């Protein structure tokens, strides 16, 4: 039986983790590779790096981070943030990423998703959707970290991206992101039920029950969380066991590491 996945996400700026775990066993808490190793050892099902580096000249740092992670962690790695061209994707994959998340570039040019899926295969193309509630049961796609509206309906957009060859949707509720109030279940369920590809729920996780809700009520295939793991509120292994006890099929007791 296929298991639901927990995906810890790390925000990386100029090659450094912005908000990181502060466990004593880390030699360098700002090193994304150290954090990745920790999550791997804890049995994370995948890893996600979100590159938030603003300046173009510093953007090369992510390739080194990805390459060093791929040396140590033999698990799926998704990289998002600033993926705009076929060449960006190629460089990330060659560095050792398995999937790339495309967000703004998809909105600016939907054909880019089609082109990327044809070239590299749907399995490595994740379309990231940042959605905001604009009315009862209405959700709109936003870009630029939720600052720019697009006028595009989030559910229609998810369907279109699946049609264009996206292999997975990473769905973030901009209303819930950072609030610790839980996923926007209505949004998650609406998108997950509308597409045949897997949906990763993101934005708003504050408790382990929120993870359970994302799968049970939101119908997500995977749940992504950042701060509850970053700050050591919960360990990945603890979260997985909690979800399993709630009746969700999880991969328990298998770890990464060498």
């Amino acid at each position, binding site marked *: 039986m296929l298991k639901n996945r927990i995906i810890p996400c790390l925000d990386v700026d100029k090659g450094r983790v912005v908000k990181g775990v502060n466990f004593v066993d880390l030699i360098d808490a700002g090193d994304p590779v150290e954090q990745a190793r920790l999550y791997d050892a804890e049995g994370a099902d995948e890893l996600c790096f979100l590159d938030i580096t603003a300046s173009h000249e510093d953007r090369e740092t992510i390739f080194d981070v990805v390459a060093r992670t791929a040396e140590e962690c033999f698990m799926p790695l998704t990289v998002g943030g600033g993926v705009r061209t076929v060449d960006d994707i190629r460089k990330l994959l060659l560095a050792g990423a398995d999937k790339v998340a495309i967000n703004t570039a998809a909105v600016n040019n939907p054909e880019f998703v089609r082109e990327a899926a044809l070239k590299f295969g749907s399995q*490595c193309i994740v379309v990231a959707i940042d959605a905001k509630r604009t009315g009862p049961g209405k959700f709109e796609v936003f870009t630029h970290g939720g600052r720019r509206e697009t006028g595009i309906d989030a559910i229609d957009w998810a369907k279109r991206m699946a049609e264009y060859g996206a292999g997975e949707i990473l769905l973030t509720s901009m209303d819930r992101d950072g609030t610790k109030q839980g996923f926007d279940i209505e949004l998650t369920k609406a998108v997950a039920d509308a597409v045949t590809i897997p949906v990763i729920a993101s934005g708003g996780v504050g408790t382990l029950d929120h993870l359970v809700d994302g799968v049970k009520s939101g119908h997500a295939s995977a749940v992504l969380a950042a701060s509850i793991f970053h700050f050591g509120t919960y360990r990945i292994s603890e979260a997985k066991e909690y979800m399993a006890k709630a009746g969700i099929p999880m991969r328990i007791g298998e770890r990464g590491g060498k």
Partner: protein
Amino acid sequence: MDVVIIDYESGNLRSAAKAFEHAVDELGGGSVLVTSDPARLADASHIVLPGVGAFADCKAGLAGISGMIDALNEQVIARGKPFLGICVGMQLMASWGREHGDTEGLGWIPGEVVAITPNDPSLKIPHMGWNALEFEPGIHPLLDSIDPGSHAYFVHSYGFRADDAAHVLARVDYGGPVTAVIGRNNLVGTQFHPEKSQRVGLHVIANFLKWRP
């Protein structure tokens, strides 16, 4: 041991190379070469064919390298070198692929590659994530000291339907059985990605490298 991973521009070979390098080091050393040069297959002790994307594209990519399919047939079929196909690299061993039209495979293991059709409509396609391997303990050295029920990482929408059930070494359940590991003589293939399957995956790679078919 000298592992050759065939590069025919299908996806990311760095993580596969890293995982094999790790396994080779653990087993006492050797080389891991990623190459698109058919001549290099002659020096290989083990040959690995990865692959992501569509069957037809992968077959075209492989056929597009002059002499590669001949070199594979010579080294793998005629000389019997241990061969591991991963994901679409495993599917290519079939007689036929039915993705995006009908495409002839390498024809090494009789069968065809068809869309997976879970009997539960709520199950997503692609089949993506960690699924539990089902197999008879002791069925094949590739799965030595791996417990049935261990998880491996899958991402695919098509699966290998073998003509002879004896060639299916392990399955997973995804609204019905899906072939996870296939094998015949010196040939093995995994639908999952051992290079992405943490310790279980590294174990499969090490088993492959230790295997003397």
